[in-house]
């Protein structure tokens, strides 16, 4: 990515503000940070556009599968390590349905796929796509499966079939849904690229050697297919980690230009598969297709994905509410903390450790920790009182006491005025809570 100054040289320097930024320099800075799009500038010259488009193109191509709201975007990543900025497009998860299954099994599979949905810290998590695999050797059966699933779900689809003729017939059924085609290999590249090009669908290239994979990229591009995804076909966790790392590093460090595409991985069932999946979530996998995904593994993997793809600059927040801990009653005391997830989890864990029944009020501080929120004016006697009123805390805890974090002891007097509760200053560190509560 070029610097703001390099970008600025190519801008019209009119400072017209039509891009929503006050000056061209401000716009250049937003572009450099990836927060604005080149198209937002209506006065950019053709030369400027082409100069900037090529140099500002992300090192990894962004590829979209599906259409509309549920479409899955992969790639477009710019970093090797999430702490350098962030990872943008969370690893997509797909469940495989093969055409060897009978109708009833397929229905069961679709129902299962729908059931794998969870809500967590305000985000919906679930399966993102379904993969339909041609295994039966009977083209009619495969096309029947494609039709049936297309009718039964809105999820974007992956079609896995290495016979170009069968693939062409299957794509014809669901072309407008922009499925991902898996795929092209050294044997069928020419015809499969033709199918993808005709249908206007993204294509997966498969080879278990990165050099051969790069060859396929060159050939597919020559055929005019640009929306590509790479399947490096790892057989174990080591190959998963190393191949994904080499692909990502080659693209980001620009040591090799032919592998700048999202990564597809087929995940076998069992423990090793789960280890490959977790490895790929942390290390650069874009789309994981599961042969099987038991629920007891799905939730940990989805939470791992949520954790890793969190923007390090935007803290995860928990819902501001009144949380009962250790089965409190009307006589149990009331405490408060902020809605920064880490603060909340720490306090919650220490409260549970104390085994003392209490009510914990979470105050919305836009994800800031106690002291930071207080300093930034996001944690005030008024905001605490508003939270207590919104949750009905004072009705549920009738002890008339509010225990406050020791870090904000100086709020005591004003909090007492605002809430009418007696204020007790708690420990400065959450780890002191068990001892404090028991005494």
């Amino acid at each position, binding site marked *: 990515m070029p610097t703001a100054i390099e970008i600025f040289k190519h801008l019209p320097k009119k400072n017209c503000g039509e891009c929503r930024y006050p000056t061209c320099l401000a716009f250049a800075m937003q572009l450099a940070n990836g927060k604005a799009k080149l198209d937002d500038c209506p006065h950019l010259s053709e030369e400027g556009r082409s100069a900037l488009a090529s140099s500002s193109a992300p090192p990894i191509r962004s590829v979209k599968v599906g259409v509309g709201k549920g479409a899955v975007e992969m790639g477009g990543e710019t970093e090797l*390590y999430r702490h350098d900025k962030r990872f943008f497009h969370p690893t997509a998860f797909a469940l495989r349905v093969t055409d060897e299954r009978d109708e009833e099994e397929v229905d069961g599979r679709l129902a299962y796929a729908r059931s794998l949905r969870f809500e967590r810290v305000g985000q919906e998590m679930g399966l993102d796509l379904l993969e339909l695999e041609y295994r039966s050797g009977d083209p009619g059966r495969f096309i029947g499966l494609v039709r049936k699933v297309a009718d039964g779900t809105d999820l974007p689809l992956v079609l896995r079939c290495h016979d170009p003729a069968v693939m062409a017939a299957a794509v014809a059924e669901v072309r407008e849904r922009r499925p991902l085609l898996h795929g092209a290999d050294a044997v069928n590249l020419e015809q499969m690229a033709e199918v993808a090009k005709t249908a206007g669908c993204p294509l997966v290239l498969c080879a278990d050697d990165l050099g051969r994979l790069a060859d396929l990229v060159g050939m597919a591009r020559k055929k005019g297919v640009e929306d590509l995804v790479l399947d490096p076909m790892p057989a174990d966790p080591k190959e998963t980690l190393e191949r994904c790392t080499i692909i990502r590093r080659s693209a980001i460090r620009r040591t090799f230009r032919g592998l700048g595409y999202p990564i597809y991985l087929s995940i076998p069932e069992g*423990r090793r598969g789960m280890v490959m999946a977790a*490895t790929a979530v942390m290390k650069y996998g874009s789309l994981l297709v599961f042969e099987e995904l038991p629920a*007891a*593994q799905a939730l940990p993997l989805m939470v791992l994905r949520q954790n890793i793809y969190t923007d390090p600059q935007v803290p995860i927040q928990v819902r501001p509410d009144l949380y009962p801990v250790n089965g409190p009653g009307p006589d149990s005391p009331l405490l408060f903390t902020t809605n920064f997830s*880490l603060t909340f989890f720490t306090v919650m*864990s220490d409260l549970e450790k104390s085994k003392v029944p209490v009510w914990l009020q979470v105050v919305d501080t836009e994800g800031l920790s106690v002291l930071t929120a207080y300093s930034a004016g996001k944690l005030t006697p008024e905001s605490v009182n508003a939270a207590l009123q919104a949750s009905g805390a004072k009705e549920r805890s009738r002890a008339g006491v509010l225990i406050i974090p020791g870090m904000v002891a100086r709020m005591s007097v004003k909090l007492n005025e605002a809430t009418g509760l007696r204020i007790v200053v708690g420990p400065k560190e959450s780890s002191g809570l068990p001892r404090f509560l028991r005494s």
Partner: protein
Amino acid sequence: MVEVPVPKEKWTGSIGTIELGRADGRDGSRPLRLGGARGLPFLSFEDPEARTVALAGWVADSLEDVPRPVQDAFGERVNDPVSWAMDWKERGADLICLHLTSTNPEEGDASPERAAETAMAVLRAVGLPLIVYGSGHGEKDAKVLERVGEMAKGERLLLGHAEEGAYKAAAAAAMANGHAVIGFSNLDINLAKQIVILLTDFGVGRGDVVIDPLMAALGMGLEYSYSVNERIRISALAGDSMLQVPMVCDCTPAWKAREATDDVPNGGPTLERGIWWESVTALAALLSGADIVVLGHPEAMAIVRDAVRGLRGEV
């Protein structure tokens, strides 16, 4: 065919090595050698030598803090730390992480003498290297670690832990008797560095320090730990000598996550989910730089051991 150059990072530093356990081979035990990494975890093209990742089995000498599923997995044996540690040995643990929680002044308040005897009994019975913690109460821990350190002279324990503001007792207990010490810090690369500086200024050799940057569990801030660990390891490899020490990650807090142990609609069998919760936490620790991983559930250890093999390309 196109040749894809392997994009190695050009590291100038490496992680120091440390040995734990008896060095004289008495009782058939052998020391555990850790550290030495010259590249990011499990990238054989950066560091062709397969480095040791030691799996520590978690044992406590009282049951207040032991998660239910962990107690269930060991049955009666959790009531006796020696028997519990033997179970870990039979299951292939590389070392034992013993928490002397019986010394908690707010609970059992066992004497340092008695706790040290427990530690010695475990040492004698299992013959594996030992990480020893007190109960997390500063003043008492100081006495406990001092006594354990004295009695186990020559056993080269890893004492837990020293932190900013409370590091002298653990450091002294280690220095006086040839043990190593864990430098703990709270989710921050600068604090991790700070505790190593404090310990080495105090006189502890850098080769006697293992850092614990606090492994937050899956769903409980794992992303912070993952990035802090990764930054620590990258800085160390890039030449920051104060961070060139092995790293220990305790993954047992995974059992405190509600989603690991509570019923969740469509979340599958709870125990299996909990085991994966701990295992996935451990995988994040491994890929971000852990040299020692502490585990509570034996199934999680089986999974993580297989994961280490898999990440090395072993069948």
